């Protein structure tokens, strides 16, 4: 009986254009947009070209500072700041009136960099100009020390070397936030119409009464409807993962470098699918409750919106937590554990203890939610308007 009800519900749901659109088309559009956005964001900036406004009397010698940067075009203008404000350049460099001669005479010269820290290109150019001037400053100090016969090690007593604990591409962290967030939103949005339709919608259309007068147990009805919502969420999740995997592999370069799992690729893909199914089941349990409580589809959708918003919090919590800092509580709290586990998987880490904690916590939560759902579904107040 469960199978018959389940198959009918699946057929009914997939005949709904809204469900089809949100289950298949939405993940494709969302993932495509975000994949290209992040690909552009993580590009190393070499191909990006910038325009830097400088004074008309900009010294040839100072121009050489930027000779190594083929992507920076110097725009000579009477008023560099005004040119910047007009939006013709991304930053402006204003040197003191006697910049070169002051340096040669050992006097204090000034250089002012003007830019917009809130603009990505302007901020990048400001950093490049600052670094270039920094290198120029060091070369002047070295020349002065050498001229006085002093070892340059006197002002540079040690060198700093930075190493990452993970040999993963730093862009992996971006993906570790992006993939779970999109996955969670896609699953929530994909399964929400079906969830609203299967309980609140049936109450509204009075098909619920027709169902309840048949000799089928209410718990069988409840379980088959929950299974339908979970299936639609899982399909959405798998399509999302498939789209992101294909697009990263076929259409990107930088993101592709960030997710090379090596020998673990298959295990990581299988585990990612498992995680998305578990999340779809958990979401189905929550959406089932909001739909039982809602008297109409509209009311149910109002209740389910905050459920989908829950996915925003783990992104905020985990953005400042390193991969080595993830501990038991990150895997014990539902929703947060999906993000934590996928973060590990994106970094190529397979920790079976964390996977088991995640599965167990979600199963326990689902059982609790299902019991609440069953209690509500057995009460006349919640099953009939």
């Amino acid at each position, binding site marked *: *009986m469960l199978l*018959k*009800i389940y198959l*009918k519900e699946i*057929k*009914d749901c997939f*005949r*709904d254009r809204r469900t089809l659109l949100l289950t298949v088309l939405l993940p494709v559009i969302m993932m495509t947009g975000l994949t290209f956005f992040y690909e552009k964001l993580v590009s190393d900036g070499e191909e990006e070209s910038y325009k830097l406004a400088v004074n008309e009397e900009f010294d040839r010698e100072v121009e050489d500072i930027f000779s190594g940067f083929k992507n920076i075009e110097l725009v000579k203008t009477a008023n560099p700041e005004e040119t910047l404000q007009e939006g013709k350049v991304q930053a402006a460099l204003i040197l003191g009136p006697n910049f070169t001669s002051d340096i040669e005479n050992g006097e204090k010269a000034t250089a002012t960099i003007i830019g917009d820290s809130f603009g990505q290109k302007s901020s990048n150019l400001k950093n490049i100009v600052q670094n270039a001037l920094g290198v120029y400053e060091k070369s002047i100090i070295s020349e002065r020390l050498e001229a006085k016969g002093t070892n340059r090690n006197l002002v540079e007593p040690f060198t700093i070397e930075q190493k990452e604990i993970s040999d993963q591409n730093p862009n992996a962290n971006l993906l570790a936030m992006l993939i779970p967030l999109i996955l969670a939103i896609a699953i929530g949005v994909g399964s929400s119409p079906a969830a609203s339709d299967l309980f609140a919608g049936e109450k509204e*259309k*009075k*098909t619920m*009464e*027709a*169902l*309840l*007068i*048949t*000799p*089928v147990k209410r718990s069988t009805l409840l379980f088959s409807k929950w299974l339908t919502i979970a299936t639609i969420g899982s399909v959405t999740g798998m399509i999302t993962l498939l789209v992101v995997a294909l697009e990263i592999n076929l259409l990107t370069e930088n993101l592709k470098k960030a997710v090379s799992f090596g020998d673990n690729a298959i295990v990581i893909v299988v585990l990612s699918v498992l995680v998305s199914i578990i999340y779809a089941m958990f979401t189905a349990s929550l959406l089932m409750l909001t739909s039982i409580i809602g008297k109409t589809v509209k009311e149910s959708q109002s209740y389910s919106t905050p459920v989908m918003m829950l996915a925003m919090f783990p992104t905020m919590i985990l953005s400042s937590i390193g991969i080595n800092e993830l501990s038991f509580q990150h895997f014990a709290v539902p929703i947060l554990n999906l993000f934590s586990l996928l973060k590990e998987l994106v970094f190529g880490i397979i920790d079976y203890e964390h996977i088991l904690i995640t599965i167990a916590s979600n199963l326990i939560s689902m059982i609790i939610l299902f019991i609440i759902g069953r209690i509500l579904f057995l009460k*006349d107040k919640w099953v*009939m308007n």
Partner: protein
Amino acid sequence: MIEIHEVTKKFQDKKKFITALKHVSFSVMEGQVVGLLGENGAGKTTLLRTMATLLTPTEGAITVAGYDTIKNANEVKKRIGVLFGGETGLYDRLTARENLEYFAALYGLSKHETKVRIDDLSRMFGMRDYLNRKVGGFSKGMRQKVAIARTLIHNPEIILFDEPTTGLDITSSNVFRQLVHQLKREGKTIIFSSHIMEEVTLLCDSVAMMHKGELVYHGNLESLYQSEGSRDLNYIFMSKLVRGNEHYAS
């Protein structure tokens, strides 16, 4: 066949209780057609829903074909067919056939039984032309026919109709009336609520009149006409309501 004994149903609305049924008692014999009359809010739908096991009585008990609606709800469900008024309770994205097949499966009918039953019902209601079309595009009359067919798919002994002709055109209403005659000939027990006195006069053996949750009359139509000295059911109904209101006022 149906025994309603001292049934009271109260609903809780925030902090106060609303009594929808007050100590309602009457019985319906096998093969009888009973008209349930009353104004809006009189308790007709609540009584039908309670008989159909959808609602649990706060007090009292109902037995259908010898089975208690609480203790043996599933046995009752197997024996009754219910059609509630207004909405037809069909799945718009499924065809008429798929709707009927689904409910047949829920009532445990085999594939062969389902096919035979759908053939019979589609012939009876003239639904063959649109049996394989999605219900979403149906007119109200077509939907009502499919809904009635769904109600009868498992060939129930007892049929409850809640205002079945509300909003139907004259042709569809006539189809329903013919159906009740046919079901009566087959020996089915039928209870239906209605506002249309002509329909009740035409189809029913007896009537149950309800007012503000109480049963104000139950009995044979002929006896009612004799005791009230009139054959105008509309007039009798109105005078019963006036008497009911006077009773409440005093």
